[in-house]
């Protein structure tokens, strides 16, 4: 694999790692394990952790996938490996 393609793959992996951290934080973190930390923040009769568990994490996932798709499109172009 050429040097360029190696760098492209490294950039992809960095982006994936970044997205995965947010993915884990919004679901396993805020919605479950870190819920006690957010218990002071009230949302509609309950706490923010409950909102993350029922809606918030899903919305974060959505944003993450589109963010990844958009970023990868420009990374593809930057390294000249996009589909013509």
């Amino acid at each position: 694999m050429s040097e360029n393609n190696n760098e492209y793959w490294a950039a992809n992996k960095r982006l994936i790692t970044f997205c995965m951290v947010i993915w884990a934080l919004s679901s396993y973190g805020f919605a479950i394990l870190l819920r006690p930390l957010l218990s002071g923040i009230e949302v509609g009769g309950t706490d923010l952790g409950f909102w993350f568990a029922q809606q918030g994490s899903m919305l974060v996932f959505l944003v993450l996938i589109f963010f990844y798709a958009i970023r990868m499109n420009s990374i593809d172009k930057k390294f000249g490996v996009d589909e013509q």
Partner: protein
Amino acid sequence: MDQTTLNIIVVGLSFCLYFGIAIWARAGSTSEFYAAGRGVNPVINGMATAADWMSAASFISMAGLIAFVGYSNSTFLMGWTGGYVLMAMLLAPYLRKFGKYTVPEFIGDRYYSTTARIVAVIALIVCSVTYVIGQMTGAGVAFSRFLEVDNTTGLYIASAVVFVYAVLGGMKGITYTQVAQYCVLIVAYTIPAIFISLQLTGNPIPGLGLFSTMSEGTAGAGMPLLSTLDGLLNDLGFNQYTTGSNPWLMALFTLSLMIGTAGLPHVIIRFFTVPKVSDARWSAGWALVFISLLYLTAPAVGAMARLNIMTTMWPDGVEGEAVAVEDLPDWFQTWQVTGLLGVEDLNGDGRIQYYNPGNPEMETMAAERGWTGNELVTFNRDILVLANPEIANLPGWVIALIAAGGLAAALSTAAGLLLAISSSISHDLIKSIINPNISEKGELLAARISMAGAIALATYLGLNPPGFAAQTVALAFGLAAASLFPTLMMGIFSRRMNSAGATAGMLAGLLSTCLYLFAYLGWFFIPGTAFLTTDQYLFGIPPTHFGPIGAMLNFGVAYLVSGMTAAPPQHIQDLVDSVRIPRGAGAALAK
């Protein structure tokens, strides 16, 4: 016109739509049969994926699943959506670049091994067949409930409908029917939800209504809906809605569902149908958009319907008198006939007391007020979705729409699973192992025959569901998480992973998951053959939560064995390099 006639008309119209699509989208080549000619727009594919993914259980049971437990069952919401993040970043674009037709085909080529391919076929068939049983029984139940035919007839009708468009059109027919089915099911789900949300909170968007305050004229006017619900449940001795159980087990279960979702072959193959690698990424996002429309509504529907039923049972609040038998609303009577709701006036006071007698704190109150047990004796969780149009006083055609929606959800998932099974038989077994010289025409015929065979098998299993049918969904997710997901991921992310490592890892994941499930649930789920009891869970992990552990064993064994054996040949390492790069995906379009 009575309700059954109306149901038959609406369901019949939806079937005509599916047949029309089947004739329009006939498959003329194997590429069309397996991958819809790779010409599906990413938004359209997202919609088809959403229908493929959301089963009869998502449509009919999920709101109830959440409403009866509350916070703890948010794991299903997060698990069944978070898997798409893994799919979008770790699998879909690269497998699309690889540009073949089945999941075992990638595993066989990447690990240059027929053994690996066969192990993958076995994992795929076990996952998909167990999953399809539930869809067929679900379709049968939906038919019998709405159209007043018996279960068996319902199942035959469902199989016949799937037969028409799946055998004719393969992936192409299934894709466009799934799009129509998605539209039917989302409209059917959303309309009653909007009305219920308006009645309770004045907010037309159910997802926002869930976190709003109650409208004037309702039981808890001015209070947040969730506080009202929590208060009522607490007063009647039920678990609070917004509090939870062991967080570590919740996290583990969520992870298990996420990895399982990403590893399920019938979802993965949907991403083979888009024209480009970048489309596969977009498409995963669109799939989640369309799934979220239902999944954001489901918890709201669950909570609101449960609140509605509580206030129906306690019209003057828990402090007042319970509802009198003759004051039960009409829909209550209707659904009692189906056996999903049932009341029994145990203490003979002419009123129906609904509370949790299992809670010791309720004993004093029950004794004081002369209650002798919970009198809402049957309260099926599916009622929360099925009875919604009637609870909200909506016209008959909305009820008919729910019937069509439930059937659309069951049929679309069944068709996707059947395609995964049949393409694996015709392409991975017949074309590559039994008769590699088969012509294009011959393979297309073999694919159609495999599809017909898979439908026959699924119908048979739907009619005679094995006793373990309920537990098999855990098996499907466990196997997808422990065998397929890690092997696919290592095939892309590790250039060094070789055939011996991958095969050993896949077997380790497969066998450890089966063993752990069988240990507590019985060998092949046969009752009485379990050799460990539920208080002997390894580290307290229930069998349903084992997926991530199986996946870790798969990764661990694979790296260990691979490290001790030779690196894969150069052309395989080149293959890995090529799937990582989007450029050139169009070349795979060549038939």
